[in-house]
């Protein structure tokens, strides 16, 4: 039940719902680059797209790393973050990034300089890189849902949204990069796959919000921010309309046309980046204790 007289508070000494403020744009950028980069590498490996492998690796190794290093209070000690793989998803993710960077580099080197290493080694490196990419695609969602503190994040669908957006970003960038490189039948399959992922992504995001709206009070507060008040002007137009509806329409009417696909890639990526930032901005802590008068559950 939502307490009537308990609202959003900042640092003042009042009982209320508090917004998450520790993770912001630098972490959102790191999450974005990591997931999309890993997704791009994954799709490019399956499709045989060399440029996709390169861009994917750079997004993870440089984009994600930069975002995290900017955020850290002590970036010089960042290497310590791999010490708690037994319990921490952040540690596990960093271990996966390290393994991915090493193995993906080997795969990439072989792609551009064939024969640089024995074929069995490249095959093993490829399999390991794909597995590591899979971990990178989901671990951030698992890290967010690992703690019960933020109802909006503490949801089994969070890793699913991470994976779905990673694949979406990956397939769209692969389509753009590979338009003149890949055979037509492979491009067609990728476009159908992209269309399926757009539908899936929309369902997953709507389900996530539904779970928040009808879950704990802080989750209801977060859903209200995104759909009904302060962040509504950003969430619905960017995440839903631009990220899914416009992207879907461009795919539907622009199949086989490079310009439409490129614009669709831009709209999808813009929608995903907006989703990441808004998930951070809307996350809300429950009041520790309240004696306020309660309403009926909405």
């Amino acid at each position, binding site marked *: 039940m939502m307490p009537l*007289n*308990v609202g959003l508070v900042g*640092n003042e*000494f*009042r*009982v209320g719902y*508090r917004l*998450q403020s*520790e*993770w912001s744009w630098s972490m959102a950028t790191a999450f974005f680059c990591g997931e999309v980069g890993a997704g791009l590498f994954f799709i490019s490996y399956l499709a045989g797209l060399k440029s996709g492998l390169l861009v994917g690796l750079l997004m993870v190794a440089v984009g994600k790393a930069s975002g*995290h290093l900017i*955020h*850290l*209070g*002590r*970036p010089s*000690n*960042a290497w*310590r*973050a*791999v*010490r*708690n793989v037994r*319990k*921490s*998803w*952040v*540690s596990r993710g*960093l271990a996966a990034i390290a393994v991915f960077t090493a193995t993906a580099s080997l795969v990439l080197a072989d792609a551009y300089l064939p024969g640089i290493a024995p074929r069995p080694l490249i095959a093993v490196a490829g399999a390991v890189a794909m597995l590591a990419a899979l971990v990178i695609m989901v671990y951030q969602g698992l*890290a967010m849902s*690992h*703690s*019960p*503190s*933020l109802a909006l994040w503490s949801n089994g669908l969070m890793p699913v949204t991470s994976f779905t957006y990673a694949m979406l970003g990956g397939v769209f960038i692969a389509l753009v990069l590979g338009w003149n490189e890949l055979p037509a039948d492979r491009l067609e399959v990728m476009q159908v796959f992209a269309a399926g992922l757009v539908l899936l992504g929309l369902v997953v995001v709507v389900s996530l919000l539904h779970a928040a709206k009808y879950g*704990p009070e802080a989750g209801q507060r977060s859903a209200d921010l995104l759909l009904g008040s302060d962040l509504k002007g950003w969430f619905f137009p960017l995440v839903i309309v631009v990220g899914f509806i416009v992207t879907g329409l461009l795919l539907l009417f622009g199949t086989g046309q490079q310009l439409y696909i490129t614009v669709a890639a831009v709209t999808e990526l813009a929608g995903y980046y907006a989703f990441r930032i808004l998930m951070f901005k809307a996350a809300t*802590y*429950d009041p*520790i*204790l*309240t*004696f*306020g*008068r309660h309403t009926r559950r909405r």
Partner: protein
Amino acid sequence: MATWGMAFDLRRCIGCNACAVACKQENTLPYGVFFTKTLTETVGTYPNVSKVYIPTICNHCEDPPCERVCPTGATYVRPDGIVMVEAKDCIGCGTCVVACPYDTRTVLHKHHVQDGLFGGGYKTPFEQQGMDRFVEGTTVKCTFCHERVDGGLQPACVATCPTEARVFGDLDDPDSVLNRLIRERKGRQPLPEKNTNPRVFYIE
């Protein structure tokens, strides 16, 4: 070995925040950083309105999510239950801050450590003697004044409270004042649905 816990008697708390001041003084906390606060809530509708004062502190949970998510192991639990942060291992990722349901942790940014209370980098003699312990970019939190507790004293906030609204003691001792208070007055944990099993109780 004792397992330390605390209880807040909400009938006794008058919201003076002497506990917050004592904590700041004991730990030489920078401007804007609090290990404990007493929050206010206005309840009822006019003309039947009253205020409730709710002290907050790190709950030193039995199953702390901050310890679980910490990638470096900087957050750890002592054998006596006190949850600590080892500054030399902390990288300031803020994952523990995000993971804590009770919003009781703070990452020390540059302005916290360097500015001083009056700004401009000037630090009073009091700040100079106490703030060297803080490492910029690391997470800090309440430690139940572990140095005082190890020396047989009560935490500063407990010792200072003028109404004895804060009670500190051994949760493993069934005859301790703390345990008797929790038992007799039906103390409840904050946000029990988060499954962190806090060692801080609220007595209404």
